[in-house]
């Protein structure tokens, strides 16, 4: 007969099994691989949805796209990495200011650079582990124009249980690496003063051209 003690034993066993099912993971590589691919897929899907939504005003499109970028990028990590060795010589106030402006700057750069791929099909094709990070491989195809496909690789970091984008590579070029080189150049030309970089970044984010639809209009008129 099933008595209290047996029930609690059964319950414990049941909980143990359930726990082991939920908590036991297959090899870290497997979980990361699928999770990473899904993450990239969801980011690109959401982006394409926003860019294809004709009912949205240009300003609203920009805003929603910015939202997606802000949620998906490892801003602080990229920012500090881009400063490189100058992070040591900057004051905490400068770092604070830099990170705030960088936020806006990166959104604009991603906006204008990735919008040219907005109307095409993006296929996630696989992953590769690099150290503690993971690279998601994808391909953009241009069925309409017959242009050869472009490989886009996403370097992801895993922070606080979530995937974030650290860098994107298209046509062999890693964007964050390029930004880092440009930042280093500005700082070193101004007596290693991070303040000079902040000033230049400020001019870039107040420029009016960096909007999704402005760029699209240029593209249309050039065809």
């Amino acid at each position, binding site marked *: 007969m099933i008595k209290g003690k047996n029930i609690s034993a059964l319950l414990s066993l049941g909980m143990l099994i359930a726990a082991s099912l939920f908590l036991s993971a297959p090899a870290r590589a497997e979980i990361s691989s699928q999770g990473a691919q899904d993450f990239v897929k969801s980011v690109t899907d959401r982006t394409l949805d926003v860019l294809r939504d004709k009912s949205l005003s240009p300003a609203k499109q920009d805003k929603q796209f910015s939202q997606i970028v802000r949620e998906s990028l490892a801003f602080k990590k990229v920012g500090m990495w881009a400063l490189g060795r100058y992070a040591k010589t900057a004051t905490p106030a400068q770092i604070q200011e830099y990170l705030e402006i960088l936020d806006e700057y990166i959104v604009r750069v991603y906006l204008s650079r990735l919008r040219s791929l907005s109307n095409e099909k993006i296929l996630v094709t696989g992953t590769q582990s690099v150290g503690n990070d993971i690279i998601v491989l994808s391909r953009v195809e241009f069925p309409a124009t017959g242009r050869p496909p472009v490989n886009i690789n996403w370097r992801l970091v895993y922070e606080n249980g979530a995937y974030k984008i650290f860098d994107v590579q298209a*046509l*062999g070029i890693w964007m964050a*690496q390029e930004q880092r080189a440009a930042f280093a150049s500005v700082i070193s030309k101004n007596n290693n003063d991070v303040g000079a970089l902040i000033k230049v970044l400020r001019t870039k984010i107040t420029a009016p051209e960096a909007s999704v639809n402005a760029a699209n209009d240029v593209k249309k008129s050039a065809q």
Partner: protein
Amino acid sequence: MIRDRLHLFWATLSRGALNAILVCMCGAVLLGGCATRPPESDPVALAEYKETNDPIEPLNRYFFAINSLIDAFVLKPAAVLYDWSLPKPVKNSVRSFFNNLETPVTLANDIFQGEWGRAKTTTTRFAINTTAGIGGLIDWASPMGYPYHSEDFGQTLAVHGVGSGPYLYLPVLGPSNPRDGIGYAADTMMNPMTYVLRGHDKVRFILFTSNAIDRRSRAIEVLDEIERSSVDYYASLRSLSRQRRADEIRNGKPDFESLPDLSASNYGSDDAVEEEPKKM
């Protein structure tokens, strides 16, 4: 006379770009076109200097400024006009034609690199496009499964282990380095067109310029966007061209091994842990 100047230009290139580069670098030293190497007492700056690998940066920036003027007043307007006025099929034919003309150089370098599959593709492309494609004006080969690729002697040297050397921004030719400059000169010597067109400088000039305009027209938006968003266009271009070149040398194969190691940097990178400089 323009004709004489062009002749001199090509002669200098084909007799040894190395000479020209050496002259430039000596001139750079004399004219102060060399970047000041930071002292050992400033390890931060010194490490940056080494990683950037652009010891004649002031001279490079000078040529960059001149090229930018030529681009703004001559090349880009021509490219924009070309892009706007000609229908797509015509522009594609132009591109096809020039790609086809480059076949001997590409084929030779495919072979030098031991890339037999690519050599076969190059040969097949040439055969199809020159005949059915009427002298290369129509690219039948690509949709048939023979995609275009280009090779040059600079890539061949790189594949055989020759390092790129410091960054060079060459007048007219743009971002480069000693190895690729020598490669370009070697290709010019290898190219039958150089000899076919000897004494026909006007034709050579027209071909060179049309090729440049077509290429420029295909990069208008991309370069505009980079210039607009970059905090230092010269430095961005330096990084982009190097990365792109490395990608070309690998024939598009991904190289994730030499990516910067992020685990070493921790919100304010530690100077003691150096990331790999990206050199190719």
